[in-house]
């Protein structure tokens, strides 16, 4: 049955078992704490407030009892009021505390006792208050009596004062008389008798004064007599003093007697009777005795209150102790249960873990994990735990499946790797190039047989994987396989290594056996180098052949070039212009030159001389034409056809200007050449006519497929030819179209219009004078060439002597010209 539960179920069962014990322990602890809490609650809620209230009550009662005697001792109304207010406040507080105690619900019997005591105390204090009021009345009465006593005593003493004065006067008189010896002795006796009489009259007064003092003192003492017994004792001497005063009053002077008798009667009233001082003191004693009694009762009540409270407190104390014991028992019991539960829970946990979890789960899990680690480590043949029905069993089963799959995949991978390797080998063997792969440390990893054949047919050089590149090249250089290494072995090795490590463009190596090898090296990701070696010996030989043919062609081409305009030649040989029949319309400046009267001039020359003259002339002109960028179309005898604007144009205006400037340059050159030619025997100088026109023409290759001519055709060519024929020898004639282009730069004279065949309107013509900039300088030079006269003078360049000589020569010429012979 357990087996069917599975690991999950069994683990749950184990945890449930452990949890059950834990819950049991917690419940027990909770119960114990609740019990303890209840007991403590009972103490704090019921017993403690009651006990505290009782204690406060007791203290308050003691305070009231302690305050009460002060009330009795009070001697003034203000003091009494103050104390009785204080006592009332304390009493109110006491009653409040009693109410609080009742609220705390202690045992009713004790509360009743306390209540009775408090009521008694209140009653007693009220009685005490009344008594104090009565005492104050008595004290006030006593004080009033004492004031009266004082007044009476003062009045009595006043009565005696005049007697004193009189006696002093008598004494003075007597002294005066007795001192006056010459006086009669009877006068002295008379004075003495007078003095005696006055003394006799004064003595009773003095005695009375003594008695009055005694009475006063005694009565003052009476007012403060400590005990009633003392009162009785004092009364006797007082009565005696009164008797003496009665006696004395009879002896006193008549005038004073009545007054004196009155005072004595007053004293009598203060000593005896209802309003006497002793009576007042006696009343006070009675009040005090009553007060003492009340105070005693007070104390008794306070004590009984304290006793009752003590019982209450004791009871509370007992209950608190009992509750404490109870709490302690419950706590001990609770602690035991908690500890037991904790122990059992721990024990059950250990048993469950040890007997069950460890044995049936962890041990097997360990087996599975060990097998897994072994498989992960590559040991696919490691033993596997037995499969089972639970999760671990399934895990073992899964592991077995995983292991089998892994074995299968491994075998398949090995096969594939072998196949791939074979394919790679086949591939690199099948290529005609040599192939080598070096690792990051320049050790040979792989090479094909072509590599050996090509580079190291000598078997003495090791080409096993792992051989270093340096080793290989050193060996091959030593063996003389490398042409470049001859005589500079170490240098070459360094170069080769550097090139191997930082490969660039493919390069060619010359081998010792005369073969050429193209080496392509590439760094590959991961730090290796791939090298491909191609045998290009044949290619190299073919290239040499080709170079030879090309040189021949080049020579041929330069010869051919002389028959073509340089621009056309360049255009064709650089491939910009196809050699095919094609044409296009362009605005060109066309220039025609011709030597005037060439046939007449050269008629009598030998053909060799003529050829030389013509070639000289054409060469000179062609040179000027080339310098000005003209395209020379063709030579027709002594005439040259040139145009500007094709194949390269600088713009219509610039082309026209170039044409005119070229024509001027030609004319200038012709005048120079005339000098040279005269020297060789040509008498009549060759003079050149030049015509220039600017207009649209068709330019291109004309002719058949076998023979083409790059030329221009159109009316413009005819017009240029016509202008050349119209020009005076040695001048340049241009059409209006050309003039319009160059008029800013070139100075021209307008000539007449001419008719040209094929052009309906007459054409305006212009003779070119010179470039405007040159014109000023040109005027300074004087040039004249006439038959039998050739003048060329540059006066600006002459010195003064030269000018004089020139002027003399010219004057001679002038004289001779003007004075014709005949």
């Amino acid at each position, binding site marked *: 049955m357990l087996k069917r539960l599975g690991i999950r179920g069994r683990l749950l069962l184990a945890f449930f078992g452990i949890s059950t014990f834990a819950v049991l322990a917690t419940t027990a602890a909770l119960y114990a704490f609740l019990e303890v809490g209840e007991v403590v609650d009972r103490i704090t809620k019921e017993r403690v407030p009651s006990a505290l209230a009782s204690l406060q009550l007791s203290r308050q009662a003691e305070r009231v009892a302690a305050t009460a005697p002060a009330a009795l001792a009070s001697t003034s109304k203000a003091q009494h009021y103050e104390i009785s207010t204080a006592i009332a406040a304390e009493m109110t507080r006491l009653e409040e505390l009693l109410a609080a105690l009742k609220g705390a619900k202690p045992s009713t019997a004790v509360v009743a006792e306390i209540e009775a005591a408090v009521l008694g105390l209140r009653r007693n204090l009220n009685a005490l208050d009344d008594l104090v009021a009565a005492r104050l009345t008595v004290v006030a009465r006593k004080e009033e009596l004492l004031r009266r006593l004082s007044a009476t005593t003062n*009045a009595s003493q*006043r009565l005696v*004062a005049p007697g004193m*004065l009189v006696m002093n*006067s008598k004494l003075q008189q007597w002294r005066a008389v007795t001192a006056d010896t010459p006086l009669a002795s009877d006068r002295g006796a008379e004075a003495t008798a007078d003095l005696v009489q006055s003394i006799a009259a004064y003595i009773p007064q003095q005695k009375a004064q003594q008695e009055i003092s005694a009475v006063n003192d005694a009565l003052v003492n009476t007012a403060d007599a400590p005990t009633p017994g003392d009162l009785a004792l004092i009364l006797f001497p007082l009565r005696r003093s009164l008797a003496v005063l009665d006696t004395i009053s009879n002896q006193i002077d008549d*005038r004073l007697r009545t007054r004196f008798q*009155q005072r004595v009667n007053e004293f009598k009233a203060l000593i005896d009777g209802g309003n006497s001082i002793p009576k007042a003191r006696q009343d006070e004693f009675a009040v005090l005795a009553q007060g003492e009694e009340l105070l005693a009762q007070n104390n008794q009540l306070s004590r009984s209150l304290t006793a009752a409270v003590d019982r209450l407190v004791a009871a509370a104390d007992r209950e608190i102790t009992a509750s404490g014991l109870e709490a302690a028992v419950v706590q001990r019991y609770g602690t035991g249960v908690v500890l037991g539960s904790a122990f059992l829970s721990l024990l059950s946990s250990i048993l469950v873990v040890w007997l069950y979890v460890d044995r049936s789960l962890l041990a097997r899990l360990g087996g599975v994990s060990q097998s897994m680690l072994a498989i992960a480590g590559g040991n696919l043949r490691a033993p596997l735990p037995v499969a089972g029905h639970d999760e671990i069993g399934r895990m073992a089963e899964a592991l077995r499946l995983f292991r089998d799959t892994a074995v299968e995949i491994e075998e398949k991978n090995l096969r594939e790797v072998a196949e791939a390797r074979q394919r790679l080998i086949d591939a690199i063997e099948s290529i005609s190039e040599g192939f080598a792969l070096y690792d990051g440390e320049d050790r040979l990893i792989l090479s094909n047989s072509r590599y050996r054949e090509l580079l190291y047919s000598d078997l003495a050089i090791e080409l096993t994987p792992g051989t270093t590149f340096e080793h290989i090249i050193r060996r091959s250089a030593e063996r003389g396989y490398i042409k470049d290494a001859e005589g500079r072995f170490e240098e070459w090795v360094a170069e080769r290594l550097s090139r191997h490590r930082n490969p660039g463009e493919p390069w060619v190596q010359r081998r010792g056996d005369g073969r050429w090898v193209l080496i392509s090296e590439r760094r590959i990701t991961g730090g290796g180098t791939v090298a491909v070696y191609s045998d290009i010996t044949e290619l190299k030989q073919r290239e040499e052949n080709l170079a030879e043919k090309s040189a021949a062609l080049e020579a041929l081409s330069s010869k051919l070039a002389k028959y073509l305009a340089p621009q056309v030649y360049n255009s064709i040989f650089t491939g910009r212009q196809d050699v095919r029949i094609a044409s296009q319309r362009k605005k060109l400046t066309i220039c025609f030159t011709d030597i005037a009267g060439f046939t007449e001039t050269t008629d009598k020359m030998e053909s060799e001389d003529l050829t030389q003259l013509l070639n000289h002339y054409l060469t000179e002109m062609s040179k000027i034409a080339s310098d000005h960028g003209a395209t020379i179309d063709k030579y027709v005898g002594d005439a040259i056809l040139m145009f500007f604007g094709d194949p390269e144009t600088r713009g219509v205006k610039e082309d026209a200007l170039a044409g005119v400037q070229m024509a001027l340059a030609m004319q200038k050159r012709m005048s120079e050449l005339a000098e040279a030619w005269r020297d060789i025997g040509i008498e009549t100088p060759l003079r050149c006519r030049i015509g220039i026109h600017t207009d649209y023409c068709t330019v291109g290759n004309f002719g058949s497929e076998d023979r083409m001519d790059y030329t221009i055709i159109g009316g413009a060519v005819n017009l240029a030819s016509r202008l050349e024929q119209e020009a005076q020898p040695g001048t340049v004639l241009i059409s209006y179209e050309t003039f319009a282009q160059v008029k800013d730069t070139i100075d021209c004279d307008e000539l007449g219009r001419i008719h040209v065949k094929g052009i309906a309107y007459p054409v305006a013509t212009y003779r070119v004078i010179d470039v405007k900039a040159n014109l000023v300088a040109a005027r300074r030079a004087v040039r004249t060439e006439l038959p039998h006269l050739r003048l060329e003078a540059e006066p600006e360049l002459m010195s003064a002597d030269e000018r004089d000589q020139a002027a003399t020569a010219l004057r001679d010429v002038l004289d001779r010209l003007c004075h014709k012979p005949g």
Partner: protein
Amino acid sequence: MHRITTVAIVALAAAALSCPARAEVLIGVAGPMTGKLEWTGTQLKRGAEVAVADINTAGGVLGEPVRLITVDDFCDPKQAVAAAQKLVADGVVFVVGHYCSGASIPASEVYEAAGILQISPSSTNPMLTEQGRANVFRVCSRDDAQGFEAGNYLADHWSDKKIAILHDNTTYGKGLADETRKQLNKRGTTEAIFEAYAPGNDDYSAEIAALQAADIAVLYLGGYHTEAALMVRAARDRGYSVQLISGDDTATEAFGLIAGPAAEGTLFTFVPDPRRNAEAAKVVERFRAENFEPDSWTLHSYGAAQTWAQAVEKAGSLELQAVIASLRGNQFDTVLGRMDFDNKGDLTVQSWVWYVWKGGEYVPLE
């Protein structure tokens, strides 16, 4: 700020200190409480005491209780100044006193400077109110009136006899003697003797013997009752029947007790006896109930305090100027009868009456 705080604190302190003083009004009574004039000084004190008790019973002044401070000036001018300064220091607002003119006059200067009201019950010398001190009043008549009365009486009855005028050289005694002599001389009679005697001696037999030798029939005495009593007693002892005439201080029981039978027939001037006033009947009863005879100036002392209390109530203030104005502007009904004051502080009605000692007490002369 600091100064303001200080002022505020001082003001608060003053307020705090003045509170208990306000709770009761202090007044003083000053006179000879010891020595030979003790008897009459005590009468002044009792009169003031009973008056204050009655005032307090009636609710005090302006609703506040009155407390009496007693000082003894020994009827001495210097002691009087000291006593007055003591009262000033105690903070009284009013003084009943002094008894003797020779004490009242120097003390009045102290009271004026301190702003304290003074009402003398018994100082009769004119100088007291002639100094021009506004704070000084008296409820007795003046000695110029008394001397006028005495001088006229002497001239009327004894112009043909030898008259001696003696004085004790005190302000009161000499002042009264001078006034009497002035009036007597004005009436055309010249005294035989005008002399001073030293007060305070035990025996004046020598002075009496001298008068007897000069055959003096009438003795006018400007002085206090003790010396007057001793002199008349000495005269009778010698069998010398000189007629003694004296001033207001003779009006005391003590004179009779000292002089004994010799007092019989002595004439003197005194203000109308206030004990006979109907207004005073109840007060007199109160004194007698305490075995005290309110003769001499007792009721005047009472009346002085009573007048002050009424003046304060009428002024509604204890402030001196208000009370002075009240005293000058009102009439007062007291144990001394209805009375009012002139601007000097004297009673508007001056009245002196003749009394004679007969049977141990003084009675108005028939």
